[in-house]
C-alpha cells in the first residue's frame, strides 16, 4: 500500500520527532489546542489549553548530513493568555489558545496572533544575541554607581551573548467579541485580519486595538430564532477583499468586502443538498463544518465536517468537486458518539504545499491523507510504538465488518479518547506536524 504524499504516490512517511510528556496521565493544561507552521516552515507554533505557546525552530541542515532535514527544537515558550473572569456575566473565560496565525515576516522579528475565546494578542518574537556593555552610570550587574565616582566617559559597546529569544505582547485586541472566538485569519495585505465568533466577524487593523469593524453579523433579532452559527472563517490567500465563513448547517459563504460595508449578504453560497437516505437524529451535527481552508492557489477551498473532507471549486457553488470519507464506519455509531460527546469534536484539515494532498485527523491517533491526483488515501498512526527514529510508518486499516484481517483494527477497538484534531503541513516540504492529546509528532518523508 503506497503512502499518499506530495507530488507522487510513493511517499513514505517516517517518524522524526515527538514532543511532550511521555506519561499517560495527561494534565489538562498540556492538551494541545492548535498547531501552525509559519510561512517559511522554519518555525512551528503550538498552543495548549493552559494558555501557553511553544515555538519550535528547525535547525539548519547540518553540513555533515546534508540529506537530513533539520530537527525542530524549542525556540521560545511563553504564557500567552491567562484565565479571566467576566464579572458582569459571571463567566469564566478559558485561557485555552484556540488559534495561532503567523504574520508574514517583514524584518528580523517574528510576529504571531494568538487568541483565546475573547481576546486576540499580537506577539513579537525576537532574538537577542548581543547586549550593550560599558555603561557609565551603571555597574555590570545593574547597580547604579555613585555619580561622584565617575571620572571619565566611555561609549558602551555591544558584546555577544548567549542567544535569548524574547516574546513580548505588542497589541491586545480585546472586548470585541460577545461570543466565543473560533477563528482568526491574517489578510494578504498584511495590514488587517479578521476574527470570527459564533455570530459575528470583525475586521481589525493590526495597528489599532481600540476599534474593529463588524463585517458579518448573523445574530437574529430574536435569539429564539437562531438556527445556525459561524464555525470558521478565513481570508482568501491572494484576494484581500475576499473571505469565506462556514456555518453549523454545512454551508460556506464567500463574501466580497468591496460589495458593502456589512457582508451579511454573501457573494456565493456553497451548499450540497443533504442525502435524504442518510437522515438521522444527528444529521445536523455531522453536517456542521468544523474547519475551512483555502488552497495555496486560492482556487479551491476545503471543508471538514464530522465524517468527510470536501474540496470545493470557488467557481461552483452547487456541490463539492471532491468528497473524501474520513471514517464512514462511524456513521452507525453516531448514537454512542453523541452520548460520549465525541460527535462534537472539531477536526481540522490542511493542504500540502502544492495542494495535491490533503490531511485530516481521526480517532485512535489515526490521521488520514488523501492524494487528490492519484486518488489514493492512506491511514497512518501517531503512536509511541512506531516512534523509532526514521522508522517508516505502516499504513493502518480499520475493519468495518466481516472477518478482521491481521493488522486490521476493528471499529469497536478504536480508542475515542485518542483523537487527532490538529495537524499542520510544512508550506514547502513534506514535513507534517500531528498533535495527539498532549504530544506533538513530526513526520517527514523518507529521503
Amino acid at each position: 500500500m503506497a503512502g499518499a504524499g506530495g507530488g507522487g504516490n510513493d511517499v513514505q512517511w517516517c517518524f522524526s520527532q515527538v514532543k511532550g510528556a511521555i506519561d499517560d496521565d495527561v494534565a489538562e493544561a498540556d492538551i494541545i489546542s492548535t498547531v501552525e507552521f509559519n510561512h517559511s516552515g522554519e518555525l512551528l507554533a503550538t498552543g495548549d489549553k493552559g494558555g501557553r505557546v511553544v515555538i519550535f525552530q528547525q535547525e539548519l541542515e547540518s553540513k555533515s548530513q546534508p540529506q537530513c532535514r533539520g530537527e525542530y527544537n524549542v525556540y521560545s515558550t511563553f504564557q500567552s493568555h491567562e484565565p479571566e473572569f467576566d464579572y458582569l456575566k459571571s463567566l469564566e473565560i478559558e485561557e485555552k489558545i484556540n488559534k495561532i496565525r503567523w504574520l508574514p515576516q517583514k524584518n528580523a522579528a517574528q510576529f504571531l496572533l494568538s487568541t483565546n475565546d475573547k481576546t486576540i494578542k499580537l506577539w513579537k518574537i525576537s532574538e537577542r544575541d548581543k547586549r550593550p556593555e560599558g555603561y557609565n552610570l551603571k555597574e555590570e550587574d545593574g547597580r547604579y554607581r555613585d555619580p561622584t565616582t565617575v571620572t571619565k566617559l566611555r561609549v558602551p559597546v555591544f558584546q555577544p551573548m548567549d542567544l535569548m529569544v524574547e516574546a513580548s505582547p505588542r497589541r491586545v485586541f480585546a472586548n470585541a467579541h460577545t461570543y466565543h472566538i473560533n477563528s482568526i485569519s491574517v489578510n494578504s495585505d498584511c495590514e488587517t485580519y479578521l476574527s470570527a465568533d459564533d455570530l459575528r466577524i470583525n475586521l481589525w487593523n493590526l495597528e489599532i486595538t481600540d476599534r474593529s469593524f463588524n463585517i458579518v453579523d448573523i445574530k437574529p433579532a430574536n435569539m429564539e430564532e437562531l438556527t445556525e452559527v459561524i464555525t470558521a472563517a478565513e481570508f482568501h490567500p491572494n484576494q484581500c477583499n475576499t473571505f469565506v465563513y462556514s456555518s453549523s448547517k454545512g454551508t460556506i459563504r464567500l463574501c466580497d468586502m468591496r460589495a458593502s460595508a456589512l457582508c451579511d449578504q454573501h457573494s456565493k453560497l456553497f451548499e450540497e443538498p443533504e442525502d435524504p437516505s442518510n437522515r438521522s437524529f444527528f444529521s445536523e451535527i455531522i453536517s456542521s463544518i468544523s474547519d475551512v481552508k483555502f488552497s495555496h492557489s486560492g482556487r479551491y477551498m476545503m471543508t471538514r465536517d464530522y465524517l468527510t473532507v470536501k474540496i470545493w471549486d470557488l467557481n461552483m457553488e452547487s456541490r463539492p468537486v471532491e468528497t473524501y470519507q474520513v471514517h464512514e464506519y462511524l456513521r452507525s455509531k453516531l448514537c454512542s458518539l453523541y452520548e460520549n460527546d465525541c460527535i462534537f469534536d472539531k477536526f481540522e484539515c490542511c493542504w500540502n504545499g502544492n495542494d495535491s494532498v490533503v490531511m485530516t485527523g481521526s480517532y485512535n491517533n489515526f490521521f488520514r491523507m488523501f492524494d487528490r491526483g492519484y486518488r489514493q488515501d492512506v491511514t497512518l498512526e501517531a503512536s509511541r510504538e512506531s516512534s523509532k527514529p526514521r522508522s517508516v510508518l505502516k499504513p493502518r486499516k480499520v475493519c468495518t465488518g466481516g472477518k478482521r484481517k491481521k493488522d486490521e483494527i476493528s471499529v469497536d477497538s478504536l480508542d475515542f479518547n485518542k483523537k487527532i484534531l490538529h495537524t499542520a503541513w510544512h508550506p514547502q516540504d513534506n514535513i507534517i506536524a500531528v498533535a495527539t492529546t498532549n504530544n506533538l509528532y513530526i513526520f517527514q518523508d523518507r529521503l
Partner: protein
Amino acid sequence: MINTMECAVDAQSLISISLRKIHNSRTQRGGIKLHKNLLVSYVLRNARQVYMNEKYAEIYRMQQYEEVMTVCNEIQELNPLDLAEDCEEQSGDCCGNDGVSEPASLCCALLPVSHLTAVQSAHIQAPSACSAPLSLQSDEVCKETEPSFYRSCCAEAYPVSNCDFSPVNNNLHCNKTTVLDLDTHVVTTVENGYLHQDCCASFQQCCQGAQSPAKKRKVDFEYYISDIEEVPDFTPCKRAKFEDCSYANSEHLDTSNISNLISIFGSGFSGLVSRQADFEQAMNGQFCSKQALASLGAWTRAIVAF
C-alpha cells in the same frame, strides 16, 4: 424519514441525554457553548418528532381498537348472525379493491417536509386503497359512531372531499388515517388492520376547525409531560370518548408547561426558550422533562443577557 433503527437508543432516551447535556453545559468552564447547545437542540427536536409521532400513532391505534371493540361487543350482543355475513362481504369488497396502491411514504411515521405535498396529493387521489382490514364491523361502526369521534383523526382540514359517509364507500376509503400535525408538519398514517374508517368522514365533520389541532396537541404533550421513563398511561383515553380525553388527566396538564414545551422543542433555539418560564424547581438529578425545563429557562436568560 429519520432512520430510527440506526442505534439502540430510542427517542425517549435521546431526549433525556440531550437535556442532561444542556444542563451540564451551564456549569462547564468557559461559559455556555452556543454551537454545541444549538446542535443538541436539533437532536432534541428530531427525537421529539419521532417520539411524538410514535406516541400519537400508538394512541390512535389504541383508541381505534377500544372504540371498535366496544361497539363490536355491543353489536355482537344484538345480532351475531348478521354480523358474520356482513363481515365476509365487507372483507371481500375491501380486499378486492386494492387496485390503487398507496405510495409507500404514506405509511411512514415521519416524513421530511418536502414529501408532504406529495403525500397530501397522493392521499387525495388514492383514498380507496385497502390494507388488510379488520373490517368485521366496519359497516355498523360507521353508522353508529358519534360524529365527535371523527374529530380525533383530523388535525386540520382534511383535503378529502370525495368521501361519502356511506358504509360501502367508507369501507373502501377508510382503512388508513392520515393526520397532518400542524406543529411539525408531519403526516402520519395509521394503518395496521384496525379500523380507520372515521378518517374519511365528510369534510364538514372532519373539520372542527381550530379545535382539533389544539386538542391533538394537548393529548400529545399530556403524555409527554409525564415522566419520560414511564410508559404513558393510555387508560384515560380508552375509557372516555376522545373528546373528553383531551381534557382529562389534569394533574399532569399544566398549560404553561405545555406551551413552554411546545416552544422549547421546536427547531433551533425557538425550541429551547421558554417565554413565560418560571420554574423554581430544584434540580435533583432526575431529568424528567419538567425539572430539566427549569434549567433551560435560566440558561436561556443567560443567553439573552448577551
